[in-house]
């Protein structure tokens, strides 16, 4: 059995509010799993239940084959990287990192050796004696990380680890955390509301909504094969529209499009395509599967421009790669055509198209 964590029908009620609703999942040893979802979706509560900070109202939690549901946090071989780092302000960096070893009764000399080793790993070997408030945000995070991994937990939990950092640092830390994961070979479970972070860093992403698992899969499969309109729009951007199917054709805001038979499911009503998978052509272009309209707005992003095309009853977004722009950057009001290849159109089972 290589599942390090197994959740079996775990629920958490806060009074009458359901925080987590009957969640079952398992995590493989050494995996980097991310729980992704908007705030209030229950992802943090789930993480805190794994850590032992909340008691589930129903269900069992297994850690490495042992039922830990009733064990308090200090008896679980799981460590957490807290959102606010939770560094002890009255202790030096070395004392902070060595805390877990010290309370476990490890000999002083051994504590120091291990602390130095792990501080070296996170690149803070020279900060052993510094106080937490003398460190920068990024350094504090590394100290918290060192403190959390020094005891070689079976699982490292990361609660929105990058949210307190500014944009530049955040990107660097994404890379670092990923490298660290590969280097130390621990199982990581991260919680974030940032889809880019989730896609970049993890082996597997679980999207949650209203206390439930919406979809579970590798980043690429989530992006390419979203299981619902919600996921399609939550991860990346998707032009969503509803239509009936007639003779293998659908209508996008009143204009006909052909789609592949495999996208059609029983009762399919919602369709979508991603802005970067459509092509923007001049207004006089001719061909199949074209949507004709006028440019209403242009958002320039550097390598890419996102064009808002008005189709009359509705709008679609199209991304234009500046490098291979066949028509240059269009101006608002220009007549354009949007080419959507049939196999680029996704079909969803009829459900909530929120």
């Amino acid at each position: 059995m290589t599942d390090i964590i197994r959740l079996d029908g775990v629920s958490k009620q806060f009074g009458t509010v359901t925080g987590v609703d009957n969640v079952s999942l398992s995590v493989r040893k050494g995996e980097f799993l991310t729980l992704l979802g908007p705030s209030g979706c229950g992802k943090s509560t789930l993480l805190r239940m794994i850590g032992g900070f909340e008691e589930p109202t129903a269900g069992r939690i297994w850690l490495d084959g042992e039922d830990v549901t009733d064990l308090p946090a200090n008896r679980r071989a799981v460590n957490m990287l807290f959102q606010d780092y939770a560094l002890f302000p009255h202790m030096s960096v070395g004392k902070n990192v060595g805390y877990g070893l010290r309370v476990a009764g490890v000999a002083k000399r051994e504590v120091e050796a291990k602390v130095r080793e792990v501080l070296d790993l996170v690149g803070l070997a020279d900060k052993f004696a510094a106080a937490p408030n003398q460190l920068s945000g990024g350094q504090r995070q590394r100290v918290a990380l060192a403190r959390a991994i020094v005891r070689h937990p079976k699982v490292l939990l990361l609660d929105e680890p990058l949210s307190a950092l500014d944009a530049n640092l955040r990107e660097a830390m994404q890379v670092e955390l990923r490298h660290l994961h590969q280097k130390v070979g621990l199982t990581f479970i991260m919680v974030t509301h940032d889809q880019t972070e989730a896609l970049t860093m993890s082996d597997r992403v679980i999207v949650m909504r209203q206390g439930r698992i919406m979809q579970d899969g590798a980043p690429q499969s989530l992006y390419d094969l979203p299981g619902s309109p919600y996921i399609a729009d939550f991860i990346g951007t998707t032009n969503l529209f509803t239509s009936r199917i007639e003779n293998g054709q659908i209508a996008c805001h009143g204009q006909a499009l052909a789609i592949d038979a495999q996208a059609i499911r029983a009762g399919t009503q919602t369709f979508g395509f991603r802005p970067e998978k459509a092509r923007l052509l001049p207004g006089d272009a001719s061909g199949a599967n074209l949507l004709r309209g006028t440019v209403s707005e242009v958002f320039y992003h550097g390598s890419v421009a996102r064009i808002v095309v008005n189709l009359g009853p509705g709008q679609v977004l199209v991304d234009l790669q500046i490098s291979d722009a066949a028509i240059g950057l269009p101006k608002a009001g220009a007549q354009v055509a949007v080419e959507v290849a049939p196999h680029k159109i996704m079909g969803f089972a009829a459900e909530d198209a929120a």
Partner: protein
Amino acid sequence: MSLAAAPSQVRTAPRARFSKRIRKLTDTWVWIGVATLILTFLYIPIVVLVAFSFNSSRSLSWPMTGLTLDWYRKLAENDQLIAAVQNSVYVAVSATILTLLIGVPAALALDRLEFPGKGVFRKLVLLPIALPGIVTGISMLILFRLMGFGLSLETVIIGHATALLAVVVTQVFARLQRLPRSLDEASADLGASGWQTFFLVTLPNIRTAVIGAGILSFTLSFDEIPVTFFLTGRDNTLPMYIWSTMRRGLTPEINAVGALIVAASILLILISVLLQRERTGQGR
């Protein structure tokens, strides 16, 4: 100030600008006057108290007749007074320790635990802040009488500890509220037991609040009359002794005691200011 740069004011005639400066100047002086007035009101009596402890005449009237240390010498020979000081130290130290032992867990419970009756518990604990000491005093007097307890310095200690609980709880609770909950969780996460977390993480971080509350409790207990009045047996505390002396007549001896208390108070104030400074210096 920010207004000075507004376009409408730029063109103000020099005369108007001048009168504005005058107004601002008088403004400043009016404020300084107000502050001085209040500080004078607060400090003249204390200055008078100390000054007359050195007055060579027995009567407390203007002008002072000359300087002497006689009154302090008399204090040193006053056995009753010395006994009262000893009693007060005993009461204040015991009451402070007791109220800290009960108040710190009470504050922790109010901050971290959910339990039935929490609202009533909080209201009861905090009540003595606004509740006249006399009500605490007589209600405990009746209790001790019904239980058949004789009155003594120990009953005074229990009374003080109860009345001062509110002080400790408010101060420690306020600090706990500013202490991120995640510190406790991080400690548990790293394998520490509840006791280890309390002694290694929580207590060090609320240390200055606990010490500050302790100093304040000590001062208040040392100075307490209403509760003591009803709960003491034959032993007098210092304020009770001073009070009974006062009712017999005013003497510079009382001023001398007062001056010493002022000196001690200044010391305690300095300690608590230093504690505060350490806290802000620690950052967080």
